[in-house]
């Protein structure tokens, strides 16, 4: 069937801000879909609130709405754009849920919008547990015994009937949110109560637990002609009981015989047909008994998922792109396989390598939360690696993680983050394979493979290396670092020996067909074999080092910048060469760069790519800290680092060098010091004067950054951390209380500086810039001060020797402007500023790196009279017991953007887009610290004027009453009467303003914030944000949040 001509415009819904369970993979899938549909001549309309995505670049769609993903907003977009169809299967669960809501709200029918990909019935059948179970019954497949319940009693009744362990999953949530295992009645009560809270429809599924069974996933595609192919099989190394997003997974399946595999494959075909997904991809999960051929169907996602992104990268089969074309009416056989170009997409990829994915966790950011893995997803990112053997691919994946084994305290008996390290340790300690299997239920195949690695580690420690022994070690996948450690030498020596003996990696192609047809697409991975397949040509190339796994502090924003670098390199006539290990990204799409090397971002792998490519230069400044920390080693090995030199980076990052520079330049800065030993810390802090900000040197995302107010706090901090040492000193800065923080992104070419944008933080200094909301252009800072900010930025850029991007952080109060930090690299806000002003900063910077001059570029930033607000998104709801308070350590996973002609409108949109509800009426509960009682009065009055009822804690209420405001007093927690927790529980509060006071866990404030979190009541923890919220609410009441405008119009871009 050819392309559908009866539709001409298609609406695509993105997945919004990056959250746990829904990350960069949907930028990758959405971008592919937009490209694919536009290539077919359709008008593509995109709605997504996440600015840090390639898909929201104005060139990607015909009309791009960076607007909140709510029914109201998307309905407004539909009203305005009148699309013929809506494709909801590429924006994760968010898009799918929205599509259902739009349907149920009658908007699709009203405007004649056809749902493509999956019908409402199919979505319901796949998502509603009972309907899904019924469907499986109809086709003779088994699901674990279960029942959907609305209350605890029904759950307990079921438990009595089928016994424990049981698994509890809330309906209609993403990433297994709220799902957990109950081993007894106590755990069941807690799990069901939490689950009912988490489910938007107030029901949970209680089912037989198959924890410990083997878990497999199949990625299936179907077209309108009912052709079905299985793109990839995935085996989870961690058995059932751990969310697949948190499991180490391997593709293809390793431990199934053909008969066993084909049984699952045939079942998958029956499932996708019965559920009725008409076109596109689905992910189907199975639990397989390790002791028999029994298996259960666990679930099906009727859409492109995280696993589809992994499967696409693992096979070279672009699932999202194909899904989009299928939705447009094509059948699989009508779509060419991009990689071979000679064969159609109606086939099943054959792999001749092994792919391993390892999730990246962030438990260190949430010390109060247990790091035990459950059916609820906790990881914030992932790495993928390709090797010719499982051992090679596993070791490459571990090298990609950028997790120091020494920092991990894994537990073999518990499915915890990075348990794989414990398997290594157990084997090293001599534990045998059956015992490890007994304790972990990890299939012996994987344990035995790791045993092979451990054995080879041991065999290397003595004697001289022969070429054969070295080659064997490299073929197993041991990194140079391990070889160096085993022999007491250095990686340089190992590399030297390898070179001398001719033990160098070869690069092989990912070609979808195991070599059966010539591959046209340059997608490579390293391995130690005889034949190398890189088609290098003579064109000069530039290597871009990507940002590795997403983590808190280094997210999709950096991938965005790397992709732009690649585009700019290609525009300038270079071969753009991408090196990255993150399967969720656009940068690891095989057609983003001229050549893609799917490799760890380690010095060893980067140097090998450089050796193979002989590039004209290497770009490190876009990928965040991962590539930057390789700068010295790459330079030492003769690589040409483009732009800001490693020494200049050091000048900006070394506290004392940077301090001297600022003094020399006459730029004011807060007092600071460095403590190389614990004994030095107190005198340094006292001299600076408390409060001070303490943190380790060279970190991203404010890791272990804290504000301390006195000696005792300082000691606590030093004791809790690994301490301080000459190699890892502690930085101590004066904390600038009550200052406003300002961020600047700029590009410098060594002669001129282009200031891309100035962002004013909403929260006052002390909240990590990544966790703070911000607005551009600034709204409360005098022009003269902004001019000074620009002037300091320029002076600094030239003095540091920045060539390329830089980010400078200032604090401003009264007439003071001080510099607190300068980072000569891409920042998290580059995509936000690029979208706010229409100047693609990363592309501009890349051109500068290639030698172009800013003065020749005629850059013109225009905010066209609108304000852009960035609001962060936090994963607090995933981590039980964690206080959702903002501080200097970054904990947000992503951000949303709101654009409007008023600040209030933009702020409201950003908040809504970030998942906060913003009430327009109801009751505000206020409880603030003493020092803020004065300032809260005006805010409270504003809420009252907007028609809100006021409620407050005793102390705050007194102040408000004294100021003539009508307010009801809510008893303290634990006092008689309905305290605030009860009030929240029964829905009596619509908005909370609660600023923290006092230290330690379990304060009243903590309990209020946790309760608000679990009940989805917006909770504002700073007065500055409360003041902004007032403007937001006001704008929402006036309908400001319903104004939608495409980015192309806002920026004056012609498409």
């Amino acid at each position, binding site marked *: 069937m050819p392309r559908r001509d009866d539709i001409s415009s298609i609406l695509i819904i993105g997945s919004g801000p990056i959250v746990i369970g829904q990350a960069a993979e949907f930028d990758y899938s959405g971008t592919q879909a937009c490209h694919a549909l536009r290539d077919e001549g359709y008008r593509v309309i995109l709605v997504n609130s996440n600015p840090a995505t390639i898909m929201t670049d104005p060139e990607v769609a015909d009309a791009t709405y960076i607007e909140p993903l709510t029914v109201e907003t998307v309905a407004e977009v539909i009203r305005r754009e009148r699309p013929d169809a809506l494709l909801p299967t590429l924006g994760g669960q968010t898009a799918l849920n929205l599509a259902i809501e739009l349907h149920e709200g009658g908007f699709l029918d009203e405007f004649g919008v056809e749902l493509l990909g999956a019908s409402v019935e199919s979505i319901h059948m796949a998502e509603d547990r009972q309907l899904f179970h019924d469907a499986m019954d109809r086709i003779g497949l088994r699901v674990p015994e279960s029942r959907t319940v609305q209350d605890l009693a029904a759950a307990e009744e079921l438990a009595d009937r089928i016994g424990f362990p049981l698994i509890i999953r809330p309906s209609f949530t993403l990433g297994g949110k709220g799902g957990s295992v109950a081993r007894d009645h106590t755990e069941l009560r807690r799990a069901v109560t939490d689950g009912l809270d988490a489910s938007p429809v107030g029901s949970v599924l209680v089912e037989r637990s198959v924890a410990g069974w083997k878990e497999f996933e199949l990625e299936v595609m179907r077209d309108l002609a009912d052709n079905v192919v299985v793109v990839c099989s995935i085996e989870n190394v961690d058995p059932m009981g751990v969310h697949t997003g948190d499991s180490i997974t391997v593709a*293809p399946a390793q431990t199934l015989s053909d008969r066993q595999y084909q049984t699952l494959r045939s079942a998958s075909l029956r499932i996708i047909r019965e559920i009725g997904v008409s076109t596109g991809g689905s992910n189907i999960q199975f639990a397989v008994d390790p002791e028999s051929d029994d298996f259960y169907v666990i679930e099906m996602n009727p859409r492109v998922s995280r696993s589809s992104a992994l499967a696409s990268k693992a096979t070279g089969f672009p699932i999202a792109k194909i899904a989009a074309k299928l939705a447009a009416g094509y059948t699989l056989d009508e779509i060419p396989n991009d990689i071979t170009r000679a064969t159609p997409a109606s086939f099943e990829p*054959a792999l001749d390598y092994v792919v391993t994915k390892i999730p990246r966790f962030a438990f260190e950011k949430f010390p109060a939360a247990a790091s035990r893995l459950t059916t609820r997803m906790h990881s914030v990112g992932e790495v993928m690696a390709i090797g010719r053997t499982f051992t090679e691919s596993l070791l490459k994946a571990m090298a990609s993680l950028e997790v120091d084994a020494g920092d991990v305290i894994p537990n073999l008996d518990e499915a915890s983050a990075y348990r794989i390290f414990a398997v290594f340790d157990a084997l090293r300690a001599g534990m045998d394979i059956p015992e490890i299997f007994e304790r972990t239920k990890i299939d012996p195949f994987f344990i*035995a493979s790791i045993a092979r690695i451990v054995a080879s580690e041991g065999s290397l420690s003595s004697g001289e290396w022969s070429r054969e022994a070295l080659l064997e070690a490299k073929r197993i996948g041991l990194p140079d670092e391990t070889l160096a450690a085993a022999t007491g030498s250095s990686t340089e020596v190992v590399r030297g020996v390898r070179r001398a003996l001719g033990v160098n990696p070869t690069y092989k192609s990912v070609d979808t067909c195991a070599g059966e047809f010539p591959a046209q697409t340059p997608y490579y991975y390293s391995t130690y074999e005889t034949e190398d397949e890189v088609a290098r040509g003579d064109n000069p190339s530039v290597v871009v080092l990507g940002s590795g796994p997403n983590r808190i502090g280094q997210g999709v924003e950096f991938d965005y910048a790397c992709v732009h670098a690649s585009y700019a390199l290609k525009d300038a006539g270079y071969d753009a060469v991408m090196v990255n290990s993150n399967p969720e990204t656009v940068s690891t799409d095989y057609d983003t760069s001229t050549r893609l090397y799917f490799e760890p971002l380690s010095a060893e792998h980067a140097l090998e790519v450089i050796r193979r490519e002989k590039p004209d230069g290497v770009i490190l400044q876009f990928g965040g800290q991962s590539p930057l920390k390789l700068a010295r080693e790459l330079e030492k090995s003769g690589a040409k680092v483009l732009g800001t030199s490693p020494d200049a980076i050091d000048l900006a990052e070394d506290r004392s060098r940077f301090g001297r520079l600022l003094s020399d330049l006459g730029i004011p800065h807060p007092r600071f010091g460095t403590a190389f030993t614990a004994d030095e810390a107190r005198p340094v802090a006292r001299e600076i004067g408390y409060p001070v900000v303490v943190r380790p040197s060279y970190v991203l995302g404010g890791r272990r950054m804290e504000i301390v107010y006195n000696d005792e706090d300082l000691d606590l901090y030093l004791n809790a951390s690994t301490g301080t040492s000459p190699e890892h000193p502690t930085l101590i800065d004066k904390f600038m209380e009550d200052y406003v923080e300002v961020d600047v992104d700029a590009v410098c070419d060594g002669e001129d500086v282009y200031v891309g944008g100035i962002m004013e933080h909403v929260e006052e200094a002390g909240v990590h810039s990544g966790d703070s909301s911000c607005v551009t252009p600034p709204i409360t800072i005098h022009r003269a001060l902004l001019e000074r900010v620009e002037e300091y930025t320029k002076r600094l850029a030239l003095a540091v020797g920045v060539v390329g991007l830089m980010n400078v952080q200032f604090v401003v109060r009264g007439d003071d402007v001080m510099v607190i930090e300068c980072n000569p690299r891409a920042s998290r806000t580059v995509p936000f500023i690029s979208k706010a002003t229409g100047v693609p900063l990363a592309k501009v910077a890349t051109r500068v790196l290639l030698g172009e001059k800013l003065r020749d570029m005629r850059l013109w930033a225009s905010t066209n009279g609108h304000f852009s607000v960035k609001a962060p998104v936090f994963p607090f709801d995933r981590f039980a017991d964690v206080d959702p308070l903002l501080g200097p350590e970054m904990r947000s996973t992503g951000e949303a953007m709101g654009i409007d002609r008023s600040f209030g409108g933009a702020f409201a949109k950003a908040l809504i887009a970030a998942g906060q509800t913003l009430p327009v009426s109801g009751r505000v509960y206020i409880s603030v610290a003493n020092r803020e009682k004065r300032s809260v009065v005006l805010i409270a009055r504003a809420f009252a004027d907007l028609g809100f009822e006021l409620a407050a804690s005793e102390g705050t209420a007194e102040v408000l009453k004294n100021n003539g405001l009508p307010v009801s007093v809510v008893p303290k927690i634990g006092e008689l009467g309905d305290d605030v927790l009860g009030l929240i529980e029964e829905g009596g509060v619509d908005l909370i303003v609660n600023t923290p006071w006092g230290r330690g866990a379990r304060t009243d404030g903590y309990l209020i914030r946790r309760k608000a979190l679990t009940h989805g009541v917006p909770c504002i923890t700073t007065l500055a944000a409360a003041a902004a919220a007032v403007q937001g609410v006001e704008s929402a009441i006036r309908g400001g949040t319903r104004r939608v405008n495409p980015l192309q119009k806002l920026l004056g871009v012609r498409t």
Partner: protein
Amino acid sequence: MEYGRSRAVVVLEDGAIFEGWTFAGDGEVAGEVVFTTSMVGYQETITDPSYRGQIVLFTYPLIGNYGVIPGDDESHKVQAAAVLVREYTPHHSNWASERSLAALLSESGVMGVEGLDTRALTRHLRDKGAMRGIISTVERDPQTLREKANAHPSMLGLDLASTSANITEPTLMTAIGEECCRVAALDYGVKGSIYKELRNRGATVLALPGSTSTDEILDSEPDGIFLSNGPGDPAALEDAVDILRPLLGEVPVFGICLGHQLLGLALGCETYKMPFGHHGANHPVRNLRTGRIEITSQNHGFSVREGTMPDDVELTHRNLYDGTVEGLWSPERRAWSVQYHPESSPGPRDSGYLFDEFVGTISEKVAT
């Protein structure tokens, strides 16, 4: 069983050299080197008589993972002359497995070699075509080995099928469940799962050696005749074609793989040797009657040439990779066949309907 490790060298007839280590057996063996891209099913593959005498190269790099599982053999022995893999997995893991692949190969005296750059070898064969090769743990000299490889009989014109039948006498295998029809199956090196498919559908199978005469076949009064898969060049099987020709039109005939090629020859088509054949489990084939695409299991080095098909023979299935003939239908003679393997094993089970159709057609005849 201890799995030994001695150096093995693979030399192709064009002189290309690949080095590895044995994980089973030793000595020297020559044969046509073919690669299969199927990622699972090594046990079915090496016991498939169609691979008889061939050196089988697995493109999937890890082989042996799930050991050897009772009941998953396609014939009573290992048929491949040798097995080439990137990495052999000594610690197999699967509840159903009984022993390791190395044990099976060693016991069968078949060499298994690991550690060579199998992807490089695959690409070589893809570019240069399937060719003869030799594996040796005893001879080191490449020139000598190359000469030996060239001295090995070429697949073109080679009759392997006549000696590949699993039986020498007619053998009756009753239907599973109620019998609905009787099939005379001509065995040129049949895969066991084909009989399972037929019997599971209620057919009683009378297995006959491929050399059984026309009269003998018809004397068994079958409701339908099945032509099996098998190794070698179909064009070398003139006797077999002569046996078939008079059968056509007498009773419905269904052929698979070599059986398809023989049917083609009997219907007047020609066959030819393909550059490197089709071996794998992922080829898309279009059923031209329904338009539907099946993902198929493939294992053949020869094919029916489309241009030589007589007007009264219909092309029913086509390979979407290279457009080659995958299915034939002669309405007048009630004979049809497919080049690929609807019994899969290994491979997807998309094409089981072909057995339904065959058994259904001949059962209807019984009913009327």
